């Protein structure tokens, strides 16, 4: 299947969903006024990927900022992946946050508490 590659903008993240390697990356900022529109193609891609996933799926979340509209869409994305995880792929989430960015670290922990997927919290100097 085709990869999903979207270039980032002032309000939307860079998306690199790589089907051949089973690596799904979101990077940058996600602050659109209405996130539903932006996340819909991502949900559709994951649905299609779920048909024949790689044995291991790595989700790389490297967000600098996200708004509350996106937070709900990101949760829905994790829920989709949670369902895939019980099928024929093992899903792991890497949640990146910048040094001293407690808010982003806590945001990762919030998802970890709600979603039944293994989360790895990774502190980096700069995203």
């Amino acid at each position, binding site marked *: 299947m085709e990869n999903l590659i979207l270039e980032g903008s*002032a*309000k939307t993240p860079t998306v690199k969903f790589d089907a051949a390697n089973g690596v799904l990356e979101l990077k940058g900022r996600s*602050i*659109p*006024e*209405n*996130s*539903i*529109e932006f996340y819909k193609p991502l949900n559709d891609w994951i649905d299609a990927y779920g048909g024949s996933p790689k044995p291991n799926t790595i989700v790389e979340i490297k967000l600098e*900022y996200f*708004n*509350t*509209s996106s*937070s*709900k*869409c990101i*949760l829905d994305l994790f829920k989709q992946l949670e369902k895939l995880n019980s099928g024929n792929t093992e899903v792991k989430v890497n949640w990146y946050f*910048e040094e*001293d*960015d*407690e*808010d*982003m670290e*806590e945001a990762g922990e*919030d998802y970890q*508490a*709600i979603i039944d997927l293994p989360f790895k919290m990774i502190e980096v100097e700069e995203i």
Partner: protein
Amino acid sequence: MNQVYDIYKRLEERNVLLSFKGMITSELLTTILSIMESKMDHIDENPKVKKKVFNILVECLQNLYHHIDQDDVVHVIAEERSALLMISKIGDAYQITTGNYMKASDAPNLKEKLDLVNGMDKEELKAYYKQVLAEGSMSSKGTAGLGMIDIARKSGEKLEYDFQPINDKTTFFSLTVKIAE
């Protein structure tokens, strides 16, 4: 012309970094965020503070944006479509103030929500955010009911607000969010 100087002086006295009054559009939001980012970069603001200010500003602006972007514009006259935004820095503390007209009938719900989050400590806000995130639903406008909770959580201070009744149908809502360093 004295009035212009008067407005200028008042903004200066309040240490206003940026102020805007008018229609809130998506393009305007992008511009304001970019201006504030460069201003904070220019003064070498602590990255932690910069992130908090940016995050809270996004939520405050999007609250204004979604308020204006509503289907029921029957009672909304031209003036009522505009809003006010002021960002000040007093000492090391940033302050974001917004003002907008809203339907008077929506005021009690908003007040209840503000009082609820103001009554919560850090841990309670975290738990409440998680609960609304996990159980809440999203509107077609893309709002998740998380904005005020997120603002209160990131600000670490009580939200100051006021409702000024204009007439039977309309209220002017103002909100001040302080961001402590």
